[in-house]
């Protein structure tokens, strides 16, 4: 094979490999450091959120290490084996190839599979297994581009609602005025009041398209599928004002579908509820 006239210059000099290795190492370091400077999660305000944060922090550390290791080796190889030169045989026996294949499999099984399961179990239990005693029950109904919050009132029973009775201005939830439970029900547009330190169970219902009830501070996110009665449960641990946002694309006003949460003492919540207009 005559050395083809058009082959690129054999040794382009040390410039490019050094630059490339530097780029890989720099990008790895910057990414890992960037998590502290720019990647701060909203301060936690719910009990089960602590275990979700634990999973995320565990993953940040685990993937951070693997990430630095990978880029470090890549940069070293790029520098060490640039250009021609005496190298020794690059061929590896089948045994070494299988051994080196086992390393990532074991690391991933232990680190990813094992770690995620073990660290993730408490969150799973708190979110799906535990049934809170004496929870504060509220219903949040999602419709195109607002959250309707429906409080059961003193009797703890939600008034029955039917789709035919929905009228946007007067009765957006479609509550049935003849149902006795409706008498003490209260509904508001996007005002959710939660007692601090008491577990809350939120019934989730959508009237038109899929929405998703999310409050980052509480680490809560749950889709509202029309035709289904969804639920989510958590326990707010810090009083204050929070915002409800919609996480599932639901149309033009998806970005404006904002609700307000105020976590207060139980007494303040009851007092606020008492001076709201009843449903009818």
């Amino acid at each position, binding site marked *: 094979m005559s050395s083809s006239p058009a082959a690129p210059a054999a040794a382009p000099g040390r410039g490019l490999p050094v630059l490339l290795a530097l780029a890989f190492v720099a990008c790895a370091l910057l990414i890992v450091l960037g998590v502290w400077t720019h990647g701060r999660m909203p301060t936690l305000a719910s009990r089960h959120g602590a275990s979700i944060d634990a999973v995320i922090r565990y993953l940040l550390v685990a993937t951070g290490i693997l990430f630095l290791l990978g880029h470090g080796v890549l940069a070293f190889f790029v520098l060490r084996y640039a250009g021609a030169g005496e190298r020794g045989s690059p061929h590896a026996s089948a045994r070494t190839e299988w051994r080196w294949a086992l390393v990532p499999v074991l690391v991933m099984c232990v680190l990813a599979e094992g770690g995620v399961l073990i660290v993730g179990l408490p969150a799973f239990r708190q979110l799906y297994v535990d049934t809170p005693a004496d929870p504060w029950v509220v219903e949040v109904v999602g419709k*195109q581009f607002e959250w309707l919050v429906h409080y059961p009132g003193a009797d703890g029973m939600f008034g029955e609602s039917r789709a035919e009775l929905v009228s*946007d201005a*007067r009765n*957006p939830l479609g509550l049935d005025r003849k149902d006795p439970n409706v008498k003490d029900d209260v509904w508001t*547009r996007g*005002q959710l009041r939660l007692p601090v330190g008491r577990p809350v169970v939120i019934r989730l219902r959508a009237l038109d398209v899929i929405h998703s009830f999310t409050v980052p501070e509480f680490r809560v996110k749950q889709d509202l599928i029309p035709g289904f009665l969804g639920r989510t449960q958590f326990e707010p641990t810090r009083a204050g004002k929070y915002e409800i946002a919609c996480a599932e694309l639901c149309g*033009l006003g998806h970005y*404006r579908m904002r609700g307000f949460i105020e976590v207060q003492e139980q007494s303040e919540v009851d007092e606020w509820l008492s001076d709201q*207009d009843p449903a009818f």
Partner: protein
Amino acid sequence: MKPILLTLPFLALLTSHTVPTGPAAAAPRGDEVGIVRGKAAFQGEAPRRRKVDMGSDPACHQLHADEPLRDESILVDDKGGLANVFVYVSKGIEGKFTPPTEPAVLDQKGCCYAPHVLGMQVGQKLVIRNSDPVTHNVHSFAKKNKAFNQSQQSGSKDLEHVFDKEEVLMQVKCDIHGWMSTYVGVVEHPFFAVTKADGSFEIPKLPPGEYTLTAKHEALGTQKTTVTVAAGGTVETSFSFAEQ
């Protein structure tokens, strides 16, 4: 010469787009036409008007800081008169009528539609204005006409629509502010009216003849009655609505 012939079908295509306007009715003299006047009443105890909860948009809440807006869907005055009932002649009118040139205006002021019920003619231009400091999203749920769903930033130019079919009480609402919703009645002819605060309405310049009047309220249903209008005469009628 040939290219001009080519453009003719093209022009015809363009002109046919606008609504066919028939012979304009000659301006009637006073004694040749009658007037229908009447009152819409609400039976039973007037429902309490809930405070409109504008919590979900602080900017709107701001606009009503002093006196909160009350729900306007069922407006009953102290003598039982029902406002915002759209009354129109549903049978007995023949011929085509040129739509008025000035547009029907629907204003969004104080995160609320004004007027609450709007009457307009087929072919008349509907102008939707946003005089609020807040973005609104005008969503019409027209069934017979072409529905539209547009966002309107505060201070942006007015939206304009023309309807080519009759549709009584087409809902137009703002998807962002759930409490904002208005009802538009589109009829072929100019013989319609919306009852005032005391429930009264008046349909002038009616050619003599026998007509069916339909009164529709956004939440309390529809009532019909037939009247006979004599030349130069005035006919009184009334409708009564009740909560289902």
